Every structure is written in C-alpha cells, then in structure tokens.
C-alpha cells in the first residue's frame, strides 16, 4: 500500500520573483527515475513541505505539455509559504501528489476560451493556458481577463506580453489602484466587459480568483448568457491531507481535494452554500 503522506525531495532549480510577495519556484525531483516518470494533469495541486514548518497545498502552475520540471507560484502568506520564500536555488523542498481532478482539455478543443483570473488566481490557470497555447491550432479564440490590486501585483508579467502576441489571442488587464503610466483599465475584473465582447457561443469560461471576484464574475457570465456547465472554476479551501481524509475541505459530501478542485458551476450550485462555498 502506498503511503500517501510521504513526500519526496525536490531541488529548486530556479526562483523568479513575480510580485513583492509572490515567487515562482521551478523544481525537479531529486530521484532521476521519479523526475522522469512523474505525471500530472492541468489544474492539479501538490502538498509542498518544508520540514519543521509543515506542508501546504499548492497548485502546479507549469504545464504537463512542458516536461521534466514543475513550477509552483507561491505567495508568502502563512508560515509554510513564508519559509518556502526563504529558500534559494539549490535548496530542497519535499513534494507529494499530484492530487485532485483536472481542468478539461480535450473537451475544450474547437472552442473559444475565456480565462478570467484575479491576483494569484492566474497561477492554477497558467497550467492550462500554456498547455492550450502548446497546441494553439486546436482551439479557437482565446481571451484572458486578468485583474489585480495594483500593476505590481500582476503575476507572470513577461508571459502576459508573450501571450498577447499569439494569434487570435487577447489579453485584457485591470487593476484597482493604477500607477503612473498604467495604460489599461482601472476597476474590478468585470469592468473588462466594457473593453471586450464576451459571448457564450461555443465558449467556455475558466475562472480562478478570490471568493468575492468569483461571485461577481459568475453573475456577469450568467448575464452574458453562459450556461452553468460552461463556467468552470477551481475552488480553494483550507486543506491538510490532500487525500480526502482530514475533513477540512469538505463541503457537503464533496472533498475539494479529491472531488475538485475543478468544478463547473452546475456542480458548484449543488453544493450546500450555507457551508460557505466562496
């Protein structure tokens, strides 16, 4: 029987600063065989350990279509993530997983895709975004609507520039508080509806962001005519074990860690909202 609680050492190969409190860590399993055979799906997460501090569930932000390494974009927020931020290139952390279900991929082929993210919510979507771009011709029009508190807090700034240049792809940005020279929109992410046409025909919307953003984006998408099944989101919840045992992420009969984290809005609507879905 596999012991799901045992993590495996992985070496940090690169650290990139995204914002003042967020970094992206590129890691590779120390064990060559494991590094070669490890598989994951877009939208899954792993439990990342720093021994002595604990472990935290972090979504994999790299894409299965780009092999041999894993990337995690982590905001220094709690004790575990803060101690991960203290690690440097060459240091070791421990990983177990991958856990959870995945974003659809095959089902999205031939469709228009709207990626809508807030803040660090772009990190879990990035896994799917780059996977989609790696077989760009299989998909139709792609739009990314991305909001953050300030321009400084936008993650993956270089990639946002790269994505913009991909044919048939739009990237729309907004911030709550602009700085001098900010050329994009100011306001919450739903304000971007003014900038670009959001149309439900042959389209799927894929969301991740803070609870309040998700609520308003879902309302706006419904207004625009999106069916519940075509609104897909990844939910977050305080989580410990990642394998459907510790109970923390349980909502109704669903465990976010094993039944999710990816749900469509039809499934989300069936969750008992009095237990606090968002």
């Amino acid at each position, binding site marked *: *029987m*596999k*012991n*799901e*609680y*045992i*993590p495996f*050492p992985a070496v940090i190969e690169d650290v990139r600063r995204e914002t003042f409190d967020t970094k992206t860590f590129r890691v590779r399993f120390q064990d060559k065989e494991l590094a070669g055979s490890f598989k994951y799906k877009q939208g899954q997460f792993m439990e990342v*350990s720093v*021994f*002595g*501090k*604990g*472990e935290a569930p972090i979504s994999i932000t790299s894409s299965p279509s780009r092999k041999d390494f894993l990337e995690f974009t982590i905001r220094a*927020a*709690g004790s575990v*993530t803060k101690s991960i931020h203290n690690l440097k290139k060459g240091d*070791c952390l*421990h990983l177990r997983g991958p*856990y959870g279900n995945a974003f659809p991929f095959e089902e999205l082929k031939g469709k228009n895709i709207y990626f809508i993210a807030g803040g660090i919510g772009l990190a879990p979507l990035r896994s799917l975004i780059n996977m989609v771009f790696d077989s760009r011709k299989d998909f139709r029009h792609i739009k990314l609507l991305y909001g953050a508190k300030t321009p400084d807090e936008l993650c993956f700034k270089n990639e946002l520039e790269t994505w913009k240049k991909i044919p048939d792809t739009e990237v729309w940005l907004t911030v709550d508080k602009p700085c001098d020279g900010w050329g994009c929109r100011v306001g919450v992410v739903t304000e971007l509806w003014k900038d670009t046409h959001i149309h439900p025909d042959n389209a799927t919307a894929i969301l991740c962001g*803070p*609870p309040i953003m998700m609520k308003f984006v879902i309302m706006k998408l419904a207004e625009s005519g999106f069916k519940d099944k075509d609104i897909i989101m990844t939910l*977050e*919840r*305080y989580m*410990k*074990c990642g*394998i*459907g*045992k*510790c*109970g*923390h992420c*349980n909502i*109704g*009969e669903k*465990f976010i860690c*094993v039944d999710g984290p990816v749900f469509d809005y039809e499934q989300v609507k069936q969750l*008992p909202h*009095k*237990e*606090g*879905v*968002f």
Partner: protein
Amino acid sequence: MKIKIIEKKNIKDLLKEAAAEWNVYAPQRNLGGDVWFEALSKPGTDLDKALESVVLEGPDTVISAKDIFFPQLETLFSFNDGKIHEKIESSPKLLFGVRPCDLKGILFADAFFKRNLEDKYYLSRVENRFIVVIGCLKPPRSSCFCTSAMTGPFAKEGFDLQLVEYKDLYLVETGSQSGEEFILKFKKYFKDCPCDFEKTVDEVKSRAAGSVELKVDFQKALELMGQESFIPEENYKRIGERCIYCGGCLYACPTCTCFNVFDNSKDKSGERMRNWDGCVYEGYTRETSGHNPRKDKWQRASRRYEHKLKYDYKQAGSSGCVGCGRCLTSCPVDIGMSKFIQEITEKRKIM
C-alpha cells in the same frame, strides 16, 4: 458455528493467555474512576494489575475504541536532515469488550479510510485485529439510543466473537473465520452448550433491546435530512448560540475522524504528526488570508449534523451517528444528537 459458552471467571485467564500473541485492549477502570479502552500491556505496568482493572459490564468507556486505530496524536514520519523515517504500526490487536455501537463506528471508519486514496496509517493499524463484542444487557448511558439507530444492543455483523451475558456465563456467537479459529485455539475456555441456548440468546437480546428507554425516530430524521429542501436553520442557529465549541462531542464520537497535520521539530530533525481536529472549531476552515467560509456559529452546527445524518448516509449508505449517545453525555451545555433528532422529527424545542 454453534453457540459456545465461556465462564465469566475464566475470562481473565483467557486474556492473559491471549496477551502472549496479541496486544490486548479492554475497558479498564483508571485511577479517576472512568473506564477507558486501553492496552493491557503497557511499559511499566503489571499485566495482572491491569487485568484486575478490566470492566466488562456496567459502565462503558468514556470514548469509543477508535483511538486504538486512529490515535488522538500520532507520528506519521520523522525527519532528520531531510531524511524520512516512516512510522507504521501494525501489531496484532485483540479488542475485548467492544460495544455494538462502537463496532459500528469502527466499521464506518474502516470504510472511510479505504475510500478515495487509502490512509496507510489507519489501514496498517487495523490489518491484524480481532474484535470481541460484548452486547449491552442494559444501556450503559441514559443517553443511549442504539435501538433507534439500529446499531445495538447486540451486533448483527462485523465482529469476530460476540458475547451474550447470561448469569455467570457468556454465550459466545462466532462472526468470522478468525472467530472460529480463535475458539479452536483456546478450546479449553470455550465449552459446548449443555443444552440448546439459541432460544435463550434470542430472549436475552430482546430483553436487552427492551431496556433501552430513549427512543427517537431515527429513520424519519434520515429521511428529512435527505431532502434537499429540509434545512432546519432555526435549530442550527439555537445550537450554534448555545454550543461552547469545546469539541467534546467530536472526540467522543465513534465516527469523527477529522485531523490536523503539523510538524514538531527542533533544528533539522523532528516529526510530522497528526492529531484530532473538529468541524465545530472556528479555525477549522479559516484560510491564511483570514477569510473563513464557515465563520458563523450556526454554519458549523449545521455542518456537524448534516455531515452525520445527510452526507454520510448519502455517501456510505449508513448514517454517521451510531446512537451511542456520548455527544449528549459529554456536552457541558446539554446538546446531543438524540435531542437534535427529537427536535426535527417531533417539531418541538428541547435544547
């Protein structure tokens, strides 16, 4: 297999002999007077002394035997300078004197820890176990409602042996292949019945069932809670206001299995551990940002009752309440599952 008999006075000798092969666990009266399900052989204690403190009739254990397989605090692995040492426990265990409701709790937890991804720690602990159930002639707690929950006062399945108390004897029912082997192995203690005891067993069981005074409409509660439109918000709000969030009910509950995971370390070495946690605590769902999706007290009350009576039933086909009544006896403010069930099925306010 036919019913066997064992004389009460021989039980302790049997346990002593079994202790050579198994880690034997039995209800024992501790210094404070409470009865706990504990190992007979512990470092620094004398087996004969432990046997003297064994209590098989009368009071039941304060909490169920769940902590033998799912300890309140356990080490998952230790780490030293990045190296991991897995700590797996799988000793042979003989649980002697488990009550039928608690057996149901154990079976429930077995299924839970097997579901989805398996929990190696729990499943290793239960790998090599033998369970002897003792049915209850009288309910050990006034809050017992096992006949309503259909979990007692005698077990129908899942035991290796079940003892039916009869005068100075126990009539022994066998529930598994290992049970039969156990009787053969210790055949000097288990005698054939001199007469037909089948009828006696039935009589004892039905008398025992009659002695459970507290009755609630359990089935109706499951039906009500199974309806999506049924949300007794007013009850949840009252419970939410009254509850002092001590967590006693969770710890005493045979089917509560929530836990926290944390590291306990100094310098580069330490242990990753888990300990019992519970859904009534405010911090249970609080996220790092401070956002708490279940911040209101009544949301947490609703979570507890709906988990047991709605979601467990939907997912596992059996309710997460086994009718042991410990939540009520352990509650300092008189809240309990039986009262909740009475409130929703009888539409009256009793809490």
